[in-house]
């Protein structure tokens, strides 16, 4: 079959690979009907996530039709022919983390837990197509994929919603929602979102659904800011203005009540010397992540507010504003999304028409053109916001 593979820093190629087979009794094989490229894939493409190997199949946002199930799966849970969306973190449903609904911290699904523990202090869950640090699972930018512990992970779609309406339940919609939910939004809250990529857009939509009074989008890509203003959010271009002053101006000098970092480790900075400092340290591997958005969010947030981090960080950062964070009683909340917790309620919101996930899709390409999709998405070319691939 065809699959989009990582073949080295800055290159992905569509290659012929074997079709997946059942390795565990609770596996299922899915024929993929739609899959997408995520901002997290860019971190892998750019080589900022360690333990990628040549030939790894990329992709953690996918859905399709079940074509085979392992012997350990009850027919009333899942059967051949079911249409499913697959959450990107692999959860077991039975460990302490899963029982606490911290699915992306599942204690059982990462065969390389020993390695992950060395990086993070405690191991994290397996993730499809997302380096060997998260288990070395083949990804879903392919014609077929193996779904692990499929009976407790795959979400069956019974209704006739089409792929584009439900595909993002696999990752970015729950991620944006969790970013807003962690903000514990109260009446009258102003929520600022760094990053107007697909994750940021869904964080904004979710903040509104959860009752935010005003939502502010921060980015430098005009077309992405335009997408936000079209939804009624206020735009701040960090290349044009000083972000902290702009936010103070928009909030009567208080600062946003809640701040969401939907940028992560490859943030760029308006002030070129700061950008250069972090870029150089990152290149020399003495800092793995560039935390401009995170620093700014902490400094801008009102005292006692919440900084909610859904942008991905992989290692170490410099100049973390611990003083601002500590002295001003800020709450920092984080996590890879616990997708399984949000899929069903969000499917409900889609069915009720309260959230329209299709609004972020700008490009639809065949799987064979995945490398072009990566180029467009990475370089923000052709006003690219989100690429959906069709095998």
């Amino acid at each position, binding site marked *: 079959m065809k699959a989009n*593979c990582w073949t080295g820093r800055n290159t992905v190629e569509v290659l012929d690979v074997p079709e997946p087979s059942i*390795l565990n009794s609770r596996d299922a094989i899915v024929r993929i009907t739609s899959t997408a490229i995520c901002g997290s894939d860019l971190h892998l493409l750019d080589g900022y996530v360690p333990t990628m190997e040549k030939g790894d*199949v990329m992709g953690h946002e996918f859905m399709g039709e079940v074509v085979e199930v392992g012997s350990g799966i009850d027919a009333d849970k899942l059967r051949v022919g079911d249409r499913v969306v697959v959450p990107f973190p692999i959860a077991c449903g039975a460990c*302490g983390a899963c029982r606490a609904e911290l699915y992306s911290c599942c204690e059982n699904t990462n*065969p390389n837990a020993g390695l992950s523990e060395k990086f993070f202090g405690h191991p994290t869950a397996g993730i499809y197509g997302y380096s*060997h640090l998260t288990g070395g699972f*083949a990804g879903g930018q392919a014609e077929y994929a193996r779904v692990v512990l499929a009976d407790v992970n795959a979400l069956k779609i019974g209704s006739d919603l089409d792929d584009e309406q439900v595909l993002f339940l696999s990752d970015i919609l729950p991620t944006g929602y969790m970013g807003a939910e962690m903000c514990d939004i109260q009446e009258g809250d102003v929520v600022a979102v760094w990053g107007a990529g697909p994750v940021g857009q869904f964080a904004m939509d979710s903040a509104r659904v959860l009752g935010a009074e005003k939502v502010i989008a921060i980015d430098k890509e005009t077309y992405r800011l335009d997408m936000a203003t079209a939804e009624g959010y206020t735009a701040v271009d960090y290349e044009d203005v000083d972000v902290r002053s702009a936010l103070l101006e928009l909030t009567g000098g208080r600062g946003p009540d809640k701040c969401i970092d939907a940028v992560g480790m490859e943030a760029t900075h308006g002030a070129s010397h700061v950008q250069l400092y972090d870029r150089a340290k990152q290149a020399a591997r003495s800092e793995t992540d560039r935390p401009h958005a995170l620093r700014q969010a902490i400094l801008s947030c009102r005292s006692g507010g919440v900084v909610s981090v859904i942008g991905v960080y992989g290692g170490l950062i410099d100049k973390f504003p611990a003083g601002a964070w500590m002295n001003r009683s800020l709450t920092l909340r984080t996590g890879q999304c616990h997708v399984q917790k949000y899929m069903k309620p969000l499917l409900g919101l889609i069915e009720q028409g309260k959230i329209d996930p299709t609004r972020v899709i700008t490009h639809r390409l065949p799987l064979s053109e995945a490398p072009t999709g990566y180029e467009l998405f990475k370089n923000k070319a052709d006003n690219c916001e989100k690429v959906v691939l069709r095998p």
Partner: protein
Amino acid sequence: MTADTRSTSRLRHDPLVRGLGWASALLGVPQVVDPAGFARALGVGDGSRQRLTTAAVGVRELAAAAGLLWRPRPAWLWGRVGGDLMDLAALARALRNHDGRGLGRTVAATAAVTVITATDVYAAVTRTRRSAPMELTATTTVAGRPDEVYDLWTDLERLPDFMAHLEDVRVTGPRTTHWRASAPFGRTVEWDAEVTRDVPGRLIAWRSADGADVDNSGEVRLAPAPGDRGTELQVTLRYDLPGGALGKTAARYFGEEPHQQLDDDLRRFKQIVETGEIVRSEGAPGGKRARGEFPQHPARPLTEGELKEALT
């Protein structure tokens, strides 16, 4: 370190080690008290250089004696071996430049030092290996009540399902089992074990019977985790590595990353308890045989050949 005190106390009652300690003392005293007389007795002459060398050797002998008799450690035995080699070198030099007077005595002294060297090497080698006990501990929390987890663990024949180095465990009697484990270079080590303590739902301990390739013992303690989070499981394994090639290979094997290995064993046990089996990925498809080595298999579906290798 508990291991250290244990080996120290054992060496203190070791007749060979004590004998070497007293021999050092007996040689050291006259060398220090009357270096000229001692040098003459060896037939190496009593010039100032010979006297100085003899006295220095005496001080070294007294230090070794004190070490071996007071705080015996393999290091002191190895120190003696080093001293012996220096003595042999000095005697060889003396033989080469000999003026003939007392030559017989120098030759006899050289022969004696050679015998002593052999004894010291023997003592150092055997005592070093004997004093290498190793203790590993690991702990995890698994879902389920202690009595349920106890039942799963005490089904000893299933231990090889998740313990990487175990090949086979067979129940041979009500309290006895036969174990087979893999060692590097395709070797296997085997032993009989018996259960030494068994408190259902709380504790099980075992130890290898006499004549095991590697003396070992282990125990698993179980306790309810606070907050209704299942069972805390604490595993302790002890290996007493004997002399001989087997001990050495085993030591190297365990020297790899023994703690990591036991941690991974427990992780797999937890996977079996909580999900029913060991989770496999395309990058690490071999289940318990995947040792977390890098580079791994790429994270792409397996070919038929790779599949066969991974699943059998």
